[in-house]
């Protein structure tokens, strides 16, 4: 009885490879999209800092 159950629940090995291929493809795209998103946040942060520096520099010039 247990050997029949094992046969029923055992997946053909090719499905494992199929699952692996689709996982690799989607993981690859999501990881790249996440990296792009992180780079965009970094650039946005740098632009915000630069804007602040420009504004404070302008304020100093006005005082002078």
């Amino acid at each position, binding site marked *: 009885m247990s050997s029949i159950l094992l046969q029923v629940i055992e997946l053909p090995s090719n499905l494992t*490879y199929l699952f692996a291929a689709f996982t690799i*493809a989607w993981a690859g795209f999501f990881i790249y999209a996440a990296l792009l998103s992180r780079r*965009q946040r970094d650039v946005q942060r740098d632009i915000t800092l*630069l804007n602040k520096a420009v504004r404070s520099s302008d304020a100093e010039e006005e005082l002078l």
Partner: protein
Amino acid sequence: MLDFNSAKRSLFSYVLAGLAIVLMTFNLLLIFIVAPTDAVLGDIQRIFYIHVPIAVMSFLAFFVVCIGSIMYLIRRTSYWDRLAHSAAEVGVVFVTITLLTGVVWARPVWGVWWTWEPRLTTTLILWLIYVAYLMVRSYAPNRSQGSLYAAAIGIVGFVDVPIVYYSVQWWRSIHPAAVVGPLAESGSLEPIMRNILLVSLVAFVLVFVWLLQQKMAIQKASDLLISISHISDRTRV
């Protein structure tokens, strides 16, 4: 005040991403539910519905690199340089996934993860060429030299794309014959398989365009930041 619009997600970007997600979900349903099981290879054959479109998108990316590089050498504007750079990076992602999905398919079908047969070898060379392109950009002594050297690699490196495609015909290859493009024979694919492959191609075109658009927007903002930093440094001096 600096304009950040180029790096913000535009309405076009959201629409593109939405379309890509919808079509890709529909594509997955087609691949796993509608597509018939191959009589010889079984379910493992379904990898073909992502492997082929991803490979085609990598060819498209490197074609864009070639055009961008040529136009940069003619016009010397940052737009073409940015396009070539962005397409190269996205292309490397696509060709990496092509190689990995191909390797996973090969293991149960050929019994090996890798073999030095023409299609696999020329695709690996393609990957190396464009990784070298990205490295030249990163390690060049200055930005304009990096752009020039990369443009040369982008133009010459594209020669490998037709070599990859025709490798199954020019040399003895165990890789399956082409099912898209000039080498594809009519009737080589069941109509339903061909139609699902076409849907998959369109879905991956959307993914490619979205990734390229995102990368270009970030590159533009980054280039602007660098040039402003240089101006600011010169002003202080």
